[in-house]
């Protein structure tokens, strides 16, 4: 668990990150969480100056010099809060009470910065390889396939993952999560009490080759 801090000498995280400098932005890929963050120029500026030695007040002054516009310390705390939520700082930041709860809109008002200078951190969760598959859950896989045996799976359900039940009703009883119809039929079918259905069934991480419902 990361420590939390209110101290104004924030330290940027630098382990297990892939950092790519772009014109006016910085892209950061977190190898631990598989999240990608795009920092706009002000967020990137602040993050790069989080060396654990430069106080927020000093960073605000440096920003003023860089963009020739008044920058308050609040703007730096606003960015630190965003960077902290993105887990890009060594210690989690707790905003001083008077600076907490600022939205982007109120930040524009309170910080006196133009929209382009408001620190922004845009985050996505990187997709798994299977998430890129051009697939959907076909209607045939959304209804209970009862008394399943080898060869009973509709072709369109072949790589869709779902739940394999040890009864003929697609519900209750023992169930295996996230397996394909053919695996259900091949490994567990044969008896006329096995059934399979896809949608919403996958709560575990699907195995490779299995498209999550």
């Amino acid at each position, binding site marked *: 668990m990361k420590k939390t801090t209110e101290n104004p000498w924030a330290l940027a995280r630098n382990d297990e990150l*892939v950092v*790519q400098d*772009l*014109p*006016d*932005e*910085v*892209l950061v*890929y977190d*190898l631990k969480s*598989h999240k*990608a963050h*795009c*920092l*706009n120029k002000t967020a990137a500026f602040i993050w790069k100056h989080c060396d654990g030695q430069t106080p927020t007040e000093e960073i605000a002054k440096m920003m003023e010099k860089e963009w020739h516009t008044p920058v308050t310390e609040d703007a730096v705390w606003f960015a630190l809060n965003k960077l902290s939520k993105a887990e890009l700082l060594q210690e989690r930041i707790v905003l001083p009470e008077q600076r907490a709860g600022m939205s982007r809109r109120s930040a524009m008002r309170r910080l006196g910065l133009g929209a382009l200078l408001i620190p922004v951190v*845009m985050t*996505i969760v*990187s*997709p*798994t*390889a*299977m*998430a*890129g*598959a*051009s*697939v*959907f859950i*076909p*209607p045939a896989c959304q209804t209970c396939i009862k008394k399943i045996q*080898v*060869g009973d*799976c509709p*072709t369109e359900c*072949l*790589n869709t993952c779902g739940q394999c039940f040890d009864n003929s009703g697609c519900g209750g009883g023992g169930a295996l999560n996230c397996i*394909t119809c*053919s*695996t259900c*039929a*091949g*490994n567990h079918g044969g008896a006329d009490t096995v059934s399979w259905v896809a949608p919403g069934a996958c709560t575990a991480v699907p*195995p*490779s*080759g299995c498209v999550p419902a």
Partner: protein
Amino acid sequence: MDYAAAQLMPYTKMTASGSGEDGSAAWLAGRSIRSYGVRIGIRTNRRELLDQILDYAPPLWRPTSVSCVERMFSFRVGVGSSRSHGASHVLLDSLETTVKSRSLKTILEAFQFRLKMYVAEMARHRVFVHAGVVGWQGKAIIVPGRSMSGKTSLVAELVRAGATYYSDEYAVLDMFGRVHPYPEPLAIRNKGSAKQKKTPAEDIGGITGIKPLPVGQVIISQYQTGAHWRPKKLSTGQAVIELLANTIPARRKPEVVIPTLHCVMSGATAFKSVRGEARDTARLILGEVDPRETWKKSKGIF
């Protein structure tokens, strides 16, 4: 097994459950192929089936003389036949579970799906992004997006409007940010149906590109009934994030993917908007139409 066949028979160093290394199969034909740098082995107990299996391999595959492969697919066809159920077929896979079916097509489609995903993730010196691609005036237009986002219909309309077809599934990027063809037929869905029909670009009046192209535009769009294409220009970082969200090996090799996507965007412009009909949007993207004209037309203003 004859001597010539034995020489060509692929093998894998990996042994896994379901690899089929149980000694019971008599593999009569086999082939090692290379697809985007990935070496794949195919074996079957029916010599005459080999060409049919290869029809399901990714586009632009080549045979290779290297017998040691990264992944092996073994087709045991027509085994365990019974009067009541007919012959069943088995696909043994060196990395994943075995697939059994009485339908040969089912087995072949499982092979196709698994191989396609594997190549897209493991390709050497290439980054696969889930996207449609066309060529236009010497540059590529990339339309990244998940399934059902309207990617293929937009690509089809771009091709009908004169663009060169490159792919409707993957943008295959090299380290210089150029996009290479992935020339599978377009998988066009009929309106209101989930079923896809494979349609060669030539059938809709297009041609298929051969040379790699630098990327000119990245189009982030989602079909929405009644919407109009009102593109907002994205920053380089925003565009890289949009591409990354559709990149197959994003997790496996981010240290390669991110610089590659940056390279792509160094010469490209990205636009984002919801869109209405693909035909109108395609013409706007290709710069044939002033967007104000389309808007006026939609409002009945002449």
